[in-house]
């Protein structure tokens, strides 16, 4: 099946839906498995024909799996630079796949929950993404896809060490479980480091990233497992799964505290952020992310009522550089993107305001 990237442009991918359990705080739940085909060297030592052969082998085998025939295939090396970044902004491919060289592909299901990357750091990276806090469903789906693929491909597997991966940090299960959290109140109340230090003690990695790729993202943090060997997939999943509710609880308590302590200041901060987004004539990606972070919390706390979380998530995605250029239908330099971004925000938010007014 062919995919029209322009068609994806107007749509909200899985993790942007703002649906699923605890989706006010948990943006998305993601699991990925790293796999290699037994009879090829790992990517670093692959020749150009090897890479093409791996790509073809995976595609041919996949075509034989009836459950996976609605996946859309794309040769990433044949896409334009904007299209590659567009896929990365939607988190369907990794930065590494954007920047790698040689034959490489991605297969995506129509609802953007499943993506298979071919010739990334490993021959195959299977990723399942769910909106909200839904690791159990993510694991069920990815395990099923892995079994289906395994019936067609011979993976590199070692009796003691498990699935063999190019980097020893992934060996064993090859599994990385991660949850993306929005924790603005813990940031404002300066409790965030305390939470993270305790997570690091139990071998969970925390990344406070104001940027995924070239975009800035305020107050978003990703928690994932560091260990991949010596524990079963379920144990690894549950380690992340069990700790997230505690962090959600901390964040909710911090929000309550802020509301009680100084609702006026909080409301002011959020309203100003919303005001800038609605009126700016030119705005950077970084500022947009920080302001959207405040507005997102405002929506959750009921301080802003003409927007849904899904709107905010969509704005996060659509205001990124490659998305803006796809929406605009042509290349834009930084200044051009900044004014296009402001224009997009003004239009989107005034439409929402109008919709809200019409309903009342």
């Amino acid at each position: 099946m062919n995919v029209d990237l322009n068609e994806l442009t107007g749509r909200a991918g899985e993790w942007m839906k703002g649906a699923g359990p605890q989706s006010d705080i948990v943006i998305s739940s993601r699991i990925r498995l790293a796999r290699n085909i037994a009879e090829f060297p790992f990517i670093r030592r692959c020749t150009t024909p090897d890479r093409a052969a791996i790509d073809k082998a995976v595609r041919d085998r996949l075509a034989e799996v009836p459950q996976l025939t609605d996946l859309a295939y794309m040769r990433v090396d044949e896409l334009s630079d904007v299209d590659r970044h567009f896929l990365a902004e939607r988190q369907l491919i990794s930065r590494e796949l954007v920047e790698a060289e040689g034959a490489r592909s991605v297969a995506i299901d129509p609802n953007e929950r499943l993506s298979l990357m071919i010739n990334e750091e490993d021959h195959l990276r299977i990723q399942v993404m769910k909106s909200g806090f839904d690791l159990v469903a993510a694991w069920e789906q990815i395990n099923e896809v892995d079994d289906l693929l395994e019936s067609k491909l011979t993976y590199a597997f070692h009796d003691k060490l498990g699935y063999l991966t190019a980097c020893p940090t992934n060996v064993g299960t090859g599994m990385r479980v991660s949850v993306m959290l929005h924790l603005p109140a813990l940031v404002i109340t300066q409790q965030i480091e305390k939470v993270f230090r305790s997570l690091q003690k139990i071998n969970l990695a925390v990344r406070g990233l104001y940027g995924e790729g070239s975009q800035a993202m305020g107050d978003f943090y990703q928690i994932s497992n560091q260990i991949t060997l010596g524990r079963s997939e379920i144990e690894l999943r549950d380690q992340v799964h069990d700790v997230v509710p505690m962090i959600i609880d901390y964040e909710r308590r911090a929000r309550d505290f802020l509301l009680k302590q100084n609702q006026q200041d909080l409301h002011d901060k959020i309203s100003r952020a919303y005001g800038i987004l609605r009126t700016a004539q030119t705005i950077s990606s970084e500022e947009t992310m920080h302001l959207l972070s405040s507005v997102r919390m405002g929506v959750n706390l009921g301080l802003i009522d003409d927007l849904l979380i899904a709107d905010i998530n969509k704005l996060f995605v659509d205001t990124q550089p490659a998305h803006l250029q796809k929406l605009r239908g042509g290349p834009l330099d930084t200044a051009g993107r900044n004014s296009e971004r402001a224009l997009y925000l003004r239009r989107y938010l005034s439409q929402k305001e109008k919709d809200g007014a019409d309903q009342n």
Partner: protein
Amino acid sequence: MKCQQCEKPATFHITELTGEQPQEIHLCEGCAQKYLMQTPGTGMPGKASLAGMLAQQLKVADTAKELEKLDEKCCPICGISFYEFRNQGRLGCPHDYVFFASELEPLIVNIHGDLLHKGKHPLTHKRSTESQTKLIQLRREMNEAIRLEQYERASELRDTIRNLEEGEEQAEDDHSV
């Protein structure tokens, strides 16, 4: 804001939480890429942190001379040297886990605290590590023969590979009946 490493604008803002105090780092995309590759504790430790772990481990075990010798050790299947692995942090083929086992095991214990996989196993296609290795080697020889335009040799090798693969399929089928 300018990148802390070069003159380009900083588009990447990373908060490091490994120390006592969170530390904000502002980088351009290129420098961020390099930085992220070497940051430990990210869920995807890069080559520098792996290299650091290895260096520590090797310092304890080996003299400079032994290390030099170890660095020259090359996997007979994919040709990667231990030095290349130390430098790139990525292995060359599945056989490396066997070939460099004595060097890798302490590293793996260091990373995971364990040496024994407890997760799922492939259900249908089980191939011994030995035959995996054999297939990689044959395929490599075949590509080399093609490169040298020795087409007769290449086609012999192709047949050998096919036989080996089909032999296993056959064995599996027999087994499952």
